[in-house]
């Protein structure tokens, strides 16, 4: 539950960062219904301190009006290449795309601490079905969101929505 205003700001930042990292608009992420669950999961794995630091790093990048390519460079430099934030960001991307958490590398855990939630698994049957990979490849989650009889005879969809 997002009770505090500060917590809501951190959630918004998480959502914005997720959007930049995944290449999907924020509304698409909210449309999975899992944004809050993923926020809680990441928060419990990395802890409040690192979450705050990630938040501040995000503020620095997103509060200014950068050109897209510059913004991408900042994300690379300050987040993906960072030894603390990089592995977290990569696991976040995979979480959104696959509904599956990939544990942080042993080196990260040695330096920053480990948490019981940091285990490799599909989070829930809903997270599997809401994986963004299926939207990205213009298909549907195997075993769910059936598209209907005969749909497979059509040429592949170009529209990635």
């Amino acid at each position, binding site marked *: 539950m997002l009770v505090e205003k500060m917590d809501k700001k951190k959630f918004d930042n998480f959502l914005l960062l997720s959007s930049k990292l995944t290449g999907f608009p924020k509304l698409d992420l909210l449309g999975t219904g899992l944004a809050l669950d993923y926020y809680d999961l990441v928060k419990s794995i990395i802890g409040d301190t690192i979450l705050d630091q990630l938040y501040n790093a995000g503020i620095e990048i997103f509060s200014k009006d950068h050109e897209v390519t510059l913004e991408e460079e900042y994300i690379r430099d300050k987040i993906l290449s960072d030894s603390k934030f990089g592995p977290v960001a990569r696991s976040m991307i995979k979480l959104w795309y696959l509904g599956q958490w990939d544990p942080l590398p042993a080196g990260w855990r040695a330096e920053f601490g480990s948490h019981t939630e940091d285990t490799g698994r599909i989070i829930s049957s809903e997270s599997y079905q809401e994986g963004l990979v299926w939207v990205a490849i213009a*298909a549907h989650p195997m075993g769910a969101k059936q598209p209907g009889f005969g749909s497979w005879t059509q040429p592949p969809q170009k529209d990635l929505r």
Partner: protein
Amino acid sequence: MEVGLNLLRRILDKRNPNLKALKTKVYDVVIVGAGISGALVAAQLKRKGKSVLILEAGLDEGLKPSSYQDYLEHFYTQEVKVPNSPYPNNPNAPQSNVLDIQKIEPGTPDVSGYYVQYGPLPFSSTNTRAVGGTTLHWLGICLRMLPNDFRMRSKYGYGVDWPLKYKDLKSYYEQAELEIGVSADVEDLRYPGTNSSFFGKGYRFPMHKIPPSYLDQVLTRRLKGMIYYDQQDEVKIDVVSIPQGRNSIPNKHYIDPRTNKPYQPVSAVGHPHMGERCEGNSSCIPICPVQAKYNALKTLDKAVNGKGKGRVEVRTQCVVSRLEIDSDNGKIKGVIYQHYPGSNKERTAVGKCYVLAASAIENAKLMLASGAAKTSGQLGCNLMDHPYLLTWALMPDPVGPFRGPFSTSGIPSFRDGPFRKRHSAFRTDIGNWGWNFPTGAPFSDVQLMVDQHNLFGKELRNQLYNSVQKQFRFGFLIEQIPQTSNRVTIDPNHVDAMGNYRPVIYYNLSEYELAGFATAKSFSDQVFQRLGAAQFTSYAPSDPGFVQYEGMGYSFHGSGHIVGTHRMGNHAHDSVVSKTQKCWDHQNLYLVGCGSMPTIGTSNPTLTMAALALQASESITNDLR
């Protein structure tokens, strides 16, 4: 596996462990196994007014819509979606799992899974021990064997001849195609070495073919006119729709002889309107969410609840350990089983006639455990599979993978021909699910692109589309020739939690199959060239199914086809059962299933198994008169 155990515990907790002892009622027929063979026999016997008891080792989860849903939910959360992933492993009725298959060290059996594997190669096919059996996770392909498949020895000098010809089974194939509900259009089916008499004049399938995928259409166009030269033999390449037990548009000219009305697709069990058409869930293996794919639950439902003067009872969680045999005349006196959870007390089920329909490996195991069918020495021997060879590539343009059934068309051109004097025949699946089988796509693609290619954001999204959309793969089902050295046996050192034997397996491939691999790969290479597709096939020596032949390496998988362990023949000295699947050594016992097949051909064996089961039902009915 942990999650599977939780599911299992939840299911068993709901069960009432008090099973009233079956007073020694004598049924007309006792059947072991509630899979497709057992279900078909039971349904036929019910129509003939017989009393039937089916003993099933596994759970009855699938029969209620809510519990079938449990299978589905379980499947969604499995990281590796192998065929048995929705169906939790049950220590009381353990089953094999693809995840257990490993390389075998010479001299040390692999005991990590349910099978005890001595090798040298791992037997890589699994089955499901639950009500509905392996048809819960099967693909659904329904191909008839070709006429020459029944006479491999006399025609090509390999394997053995069946005691049957194709034309003996033809009417049973038709019946099986009705019982299962097969979708195909005869005018689209062309097989090497066959003519219009193969299906016969005017034959129709109950439903029209499953519409071909976009990928099929591309390949049909691009491979038109292709000829492959297998030494001096010309093989004309043809892309042909695959008949399957999957609901499609009913053929309005097909009048169902059981109702005298046009055929109606059979919906999901307990759900009158679900599954009347394939909805494109793209998960046939391991589970069809809507049951548009045939599964034996549908036949069981008919057997138990449908019309007929007889009566069919299904008792689940009853694991059969052996048969009781009359030492004077060899007749079966009873079936010994234990029910779980609860005490391990042995109970006996008695019938006038007995049918083992527990799948080829389990049937053989039970017979061996009972000291039965010793005359021929063939019991447990001639274990066969279709080693499945994968090749994969990127097409020049998007082809829309991960949509529709696993495979809607294939290339049957190598199913028969003079080359069978030199190497295995094979059948080619055109895979609609990208590289899912060989590489674990699209999950593996995301991991690769994020972790290795350092992509993120819109670029990641675009790259995923551009790459995965072009994925396509072939699957080659290679015919395996029977060898007595490929066999199942038992060993008191290897038992399961209930004290029943685990199958001990010796398995290998011969040069005949490996030469088939080589031809398949060479054909695949030529197709990729012709398509302008970029080859990504790679086989690693560390793969469990890695083999070498003429300087090249290949990796094979199992097709889920377990065949041959109690083969039929004309004589008791070299076969276990007769052509009606009656056991030579035990006159009131039938061994029904793929185990009775002397050769495997290139067709997925379920349709043949179904035809044989229907034939056996007639013989059983006659016996009971």
